[in-house]
């Protein structure tokens, strides 16, 4: 029996395998940074990790607090600016980027801006940041959705996926051939996009999840791959790396918060006692 793992560890390990050796990789905060660190340590030692803030070619020592957190590194090889990080993607030098998802539709178009009416929002989400530009020009885009939702129609189209499906993205002439979302990771499984229709389908299911659990959160008749696989049990080396590098990520938001609050109240008590 191999070592036991958390769901969050499994997610990091699953998505890290999307990074291939020698690739240029634009990471995002949270899960992607942990995945990038793991890939660099185990699967893709020659990958060049990049942040759009202009921190390029680094090995994180600890999880970054945000996109411009050079304090989490011990130097980095190339200090450029945000403008050049994006024109680099535009010129075709970014192989894969990672984006978080608020809402996603059938064809991988994304909303990270608003829930409800844009002009009178029910909930204001962060916005595009770099998402719309990176998904346009990176060769591949890996999507991660932890708290988001599948919807028939996005409340706001922040980032272009495969537009209306089929060849509609390619037909605009605005995007590099073959670009667009390549996979979507959720807490329940891995989805990929049909090469012809560009509709997302379930390709891989995480352990202990039933197809019905997934289907009930998708407001259309979700297609399932005939070769559906179960996400493999991670190796001990993978689990150990993630748990040591990003323990808070490994615990997940809820359990991490529980420990942080316990720690703060312990410190407060010591202070009053002392």
């Amino acid at each position: 029996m191999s070592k036991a793992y958390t769901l969050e560890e499994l997610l990091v390990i699953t998505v890290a395998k999307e990074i291939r050796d020698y690739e240029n990789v634009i990471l995002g905060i949270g899960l992607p940074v942990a995945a990038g660190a793991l890939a660099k340590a185990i699967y893709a030692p020659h990958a060049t990790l990049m942040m759009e803030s202009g921190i390029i070619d680094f090995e994180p020592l600890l999880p970054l607090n945000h996109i411009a957190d050079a304090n989490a590194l011990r130097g980095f090889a190339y200090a450029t600016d945000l403008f050049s990080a994006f024109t680099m993607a535009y010129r075709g030098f970014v192989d894969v980027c990672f984006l978080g998802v608020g809402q996603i539709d059938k064809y991988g178009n994304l909303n990270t801006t608003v829930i409800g009416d844009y002009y009178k929002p029910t909930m204001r989400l962060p916005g595009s940041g770099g998402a719309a530009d990176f998904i346009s020009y990176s060769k591949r885009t890996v999507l991660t959705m932890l708290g988001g939702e599948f919807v028939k129609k996005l409340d706001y189209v922040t980032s272009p996926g495969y537009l209306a499906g089929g060849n509609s993205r390619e037909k605009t002439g605005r995007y590099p051939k073959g670009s667009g979302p390549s996979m979507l990771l959720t807490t329940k499984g891995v989805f990929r996009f049909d090469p012809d229709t560009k509709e997302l389908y379930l390709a891989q299911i995480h352990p202990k999840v039933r197809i019905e659990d997934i289907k009930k959160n998708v407001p259309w008749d979700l297609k399932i791959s005939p070769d559906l696989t179960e996400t493999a049990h991670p190796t001990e080396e993978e689990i150990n790396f993630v748990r040591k590098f990003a323990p808070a990520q490994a615990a997940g938001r809820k359990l991490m918060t529980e420990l942080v609050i316990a720690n703060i109240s312990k410190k407060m008590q010591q202070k009053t006692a002392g």
Partner: protein
Amino acid sequence: MSEVKSKIMTANEAIRKFVHDGSSLILGNYTVAAAMALVYEVARQQKKNLTVYSQSGVIDVEVLVAAGCVDRLVSTYVYRGGGRSGGSAVERALQTGTLQMEDYTNFQYNARLVAGMHGFTFIPVLEGVIDTDLFRKRTFMGEDKYRVIKCPYTGKEILTVPAANPDVCIVHVQRADKYGNAQYWGALGSVAAAALSSKRIIVSCEEIVEYDVIKSSPHLTLLPSYRVDAVIEIPWGASPTEVIGYYNLDRFMFSMFSMACGDAKAMQAWMDEWVFNCKDREAYINHYVEKFGSGTLDGFRAKAFYSAPANYGAAFTSIWDGEGRERNMGVTMEEFEKFLKEKGALYE
């Protein structure tokens, strides 16, 4: 440089002098090293009707919006405390209609500043966004948020954004001299473009250094003295955000802010304590130490990790060699003057 005037002043003086009601104010830093001491000063002086430019707004934008200073926001990314169940001052202001926001992507926002910094009136940007609501939905900029033109060389459809030249930039850096030469390193983001596109620049820094220090490390100089209007030395001036080489993110303060900003009342209480009731950064630090002890802040201090020095040396520093001979003509000054006189080249 003896003739050049020192630009050193206090945060209070600089904000009073250069930020006015109705100004367009750009927050120069991108996520790290936010000019928090200057932001708090703008809030304390209750500047009104500002148009704020922010590449990525977190605690800085939240404080200005919660203080009621901002009518219009141009940004790409705003903060939300406490995830889906939380909220933000920006969200509340959008809901009540006291704030209008124009959304761009990171690149497009930065491109507007790059155009402004170089004196152009517009700039082409990555065109994928034409297929999104970023392009379709507009607020106060209307038609001028984006315009599509045809490339005169290729005939290709080109998406453009207008240049931005904000009235004033507030920006925090590691070090500067009294003339305004400002050095910044780490994640460069859009800091240079934000400052250099602006009409006025207010710099706060962790420390003021001699002009000679700047001259020996020009690759670190982001802003030249002649563009900078005010220099303020403010240690811990970006806290609770981090400054590489000086301190890390103050997670403790940041968590307090993050928990507060989802709720209007809690945010007001946090602002009262940390923004309005501390008259300057020194008072903020004093209050902090009084409340949590000095060990908390000390724990965030950076341990040094120095950059390898760049060698700016040259073979010689005078056209006259060790024996006083001009290096190419081979003569001493005395021989040189004698020669000029003999040739009739000197006017008596």
